[in-house]
C-alpha cells in the first residue's frame, strides 16, 4: 500500500489530504503515477469480488 498525494494543475502538491492506493507494479518514492478510483476495476485487478479496495495505481507517468 502506498501513500499518494494529489497534485494541482501546476504540478505542486495539492492541499487535499493524502490517500492510500494499492500498487501492483512497484512505483518509487515521489514518482508521478496515475491512480484509478474505480472500485469495480480494482476488484478485478486483485481477482477478489469481495475486496474493499478502490484506489489502485494504474501506471507511472514518463517525465
Amino acid at each position, binding site marked *: *500500500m502506498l*501513500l499518494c498525494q494529489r497534485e494541482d494543475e501546476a504540478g505542486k*502538491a495539492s492541499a487535499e489530504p*493524502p*490517500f*492510500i492506493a494499492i500498487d501492483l507494479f512497484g512505483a518509487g518514492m*515521489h514518482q508521478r503515477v496515475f491512480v484509478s478510483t474505480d472500485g469495480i476495476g480494482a476488484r478485478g485487478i486483485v481477482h477478489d469480488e*469481495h475486496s474493499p479496495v478502490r484506489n489502485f495505481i494504474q501506471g507511472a507517468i514518463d517525465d
Partner: protein
Amino acid sequence: MRIGQVIGKITMSRQDPAFKAARWLMVSPVEAQDFNTCCNKPPRLSKEPSVVVYDRLGAGTNDIVGFVEGAEATAPFDEPTPIDAITVALFDQINYQPYKG
C-alpha cells in the same frame, strides 16, 4: 482508504439484523503531519469529523487503522449491508515523505 486512530467503541441495544455480531468503533482520521509518529504515539485529535466504522479485525483503542468508506465498504459482504465505513487494515508503521518540489 484513509488512516484513522481508534478513539472509542460503540455498543448498540438494537441494530439491523444484517449486522449480526458487529463491532463498531469510533475512528478519528489522522492528519498528514502525524502519519510518521501515529503508530508509536497517539496523534492529536483531528479537526476532521470522527467516523463510526464497522470492524471485523478486532482493532482496539489507540490502534491505527485503514478504513474504507463508500460503496467499497460493503464489498466484503455476501448480502447487501447498510454500512458506509469498514476497517480493512491495522498499521504497524507509516512512512510519509511528502514531495516538496
